[in-house]
């Protein structure tokens, strides 16, 4: 379970490479046993933030506290953190067993609760075997890592990091190279490993679905800034900006004007909503999820449009509907043939109002 103690605190961290600032004043805390995901498009700074935690980069300014102590200048090999690298970075000169045992071999016998070298060896063997069992790779000890498939290499990379019993595990897009089915399986397995072992996970991905599935908390990043931090459901239901709304799930983003509390005008139509506290006639972005648009008869719809295209997506149909000034993406379990006229309506609590991004 996520505990209340703050294990890692990132305070006002900036990072520049030469003249380009890739992280702007990042503030974030990570609690013990929490699964935190840094989510954003490529180039948003999420990997750089992870590398700062791992000790592979040092912040240009700001503090990174680990259990209250500043670790900004502590080299990676002295941190109680391990990393699963994007392309696994396994040691090709060592077999599976020696890859996993690499970190343990570097430790003193005492650190492993052993009194002699032979006891240490025995303890390492026990731990490596337990790890191989955890990642379901028993019997692969003597195999060369080059002979493994992507999914298997991935498991070895996870085992190699976890065997050291780190307080924090950093994962840099660890499932990026796997096919969809394997990726879904590994998502479930990673989450259950994290809960089983009680280790804090910091996970980097650009896949919003992955982030929503596994995380306790998600930090959405863009252009070196954290735009929103929160529980997956909260971020999905109440995105703070049009970018977050668009990045987390699909969205129709419509320019509108807030007429008064609980009333917004978009596409020339007044929609009742549940948002308050905006200025009168303040221009806003209105976000409507495709699954929140209801298709009704043309006589009762708040808007009317023509179905442009229909794609079968398995559970639902995805329709592009031309409503004059723009097109809306609509998800529905009932199909309307292309070319047909439909009415569209949205209930007030499914309308999300965003302040215009500066």
């Amino acid at each position, binding site marked *: 379970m996520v505990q209340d103690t703050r294990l890692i605190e990132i305070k006002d961290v900036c990072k520049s490479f030469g003249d380009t600032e890739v992280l702007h004043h990042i503030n974030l805390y990570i609690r013990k046993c929490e699964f935190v995901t840094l989510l954003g498009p490529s180039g948003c700074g999420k990997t750089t933030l992870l590398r700062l935690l791992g000790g592979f980069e040092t912040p240009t300014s700001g503090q990174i506290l680990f259990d209250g102590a500043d670790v900004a200048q502590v080299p990676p*090999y002295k941190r109680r953190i391990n990393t699963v690298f994007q392309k696994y970075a396994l*040691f090709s000169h060592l077999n599976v067993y020696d890859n996993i045992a690499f970190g343990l071999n570097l430790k003193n016998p005492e650190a492993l609760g052993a009194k002699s070298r032979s006891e240490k060896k025995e303890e390492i063997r026990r731990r490596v075997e337990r790890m191989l069992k955890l990642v379901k790779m028993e019997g692969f000890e003597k195999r060369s890592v080059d002979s493994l498939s992507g999914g298997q290499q991935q498991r070895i990379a996870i085992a190699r990091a976890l065997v050291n019993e780190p307080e924090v595990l950093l994962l840099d897009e660890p499932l990026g190279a796997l096919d969809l089915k394997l990726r879904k399986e590994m998502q479930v397995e990673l989450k259950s490993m994290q809960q089983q072992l009680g280790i804090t996970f910091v996970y980097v991905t650009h896949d919003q679905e992955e982030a929503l599935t596994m995380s306790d908390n998600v930090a959405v990043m863009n252009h070196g800034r954290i735009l929103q931090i929160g529980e997956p459901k909260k971020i999905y239901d109440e995105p703070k900006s049009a970018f977050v709304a668009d990045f987390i799930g699909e969205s129709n983003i419509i320019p509108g004007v807030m007429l008064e509390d609980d009333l917004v005008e978009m596409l020339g139509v007044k929609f009742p909503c549940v948002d308050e506290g905006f200025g009168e006639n303040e221009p806003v972005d209105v976000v409507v999820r495709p699954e929140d648009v209801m298709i009704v008869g043309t006589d009762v719809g708040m808007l009317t449009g023509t179905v442009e295209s229909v794609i079968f997506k398995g559970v639902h149909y995805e329709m592009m509907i031309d409503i004059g000034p723009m097109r809306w993406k609509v998800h529905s379990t009932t199909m309307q043939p292309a070319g047909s006229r439909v009415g569209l309506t949205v209930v007030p609590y499914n309308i999300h109002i965003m302040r215009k991004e500066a």
Partner: protein
Amino acid sequence: MKRQWYAAPYALWMLLFTLVPLLFVAYYAFTDGSGGFSTDNILRIFQPGYLPVLLDSLRLSLYCTLICLLIGYPTAYFLASRDFSENKMLVVLILLPMWMNFLLRTYAMMTILENNGLINMLLEKLGLDKVQFIGTEGAVLLGMVYNFLPFMVLPVYTALKKLDARVIEAAEDLGANPLRVITRVIVPQSIPGVISGVTMVFMPAVTTFAITRLLSNGMIYLMGDMIEEFFITVNNRNAGSALSLVMLALVLISTLLLRLVNPDTREGRA
């Protein structure tokens, strides 16, 4: 035209200038002056006066390989390190001597070491005694190392350059301090480069001939010199061919031995 025919010019070249001469060498090695079959020339290597020359050749070429490794590895490491990877000029400087004929390089070395050479002129100017370099084993070794060093640097440099920065980071991440990163990851992963460097230095070193004559005035006499003498001076093709064949066998055996220790060619590896 089928694609394999594109290799025809090379195949013809190999046939004419490698395979056919090799057959001649083998023929002369196993015959005596009158053309009858004989193993005398091959067994000559075990006669007194021959074995010491062979051992000297082996000893000097091993020294040369070792010195090249000791100088070449750190040089390659330095060149491949991230701080200098931008600086292609340094790599070019290392490789520059390779582009010149080795005889020219050796003559250059000779003019430096000679009794009236650069170093001794300098010593004289300073009022010091001249030093006899030419004729010493050190001078020959210097010439060999000077000639063959780039052949060590280049393969090791290539191997180190291929090393993934993430793999080094992974080692640091797992608790390896900078020294451990070198001993447990960088060196083991560069072994294939070291092996090919050792091969490329040892092979030409063990058959060296002109370097010895230029830098020792014939005082140091190695297998290469002996073979040359049999062919050119003594005009005994049979003995020269036999000794060449012995050297060829030696080179083949050492290649095979090196293959055994090379993790890249061991069984179970792609």
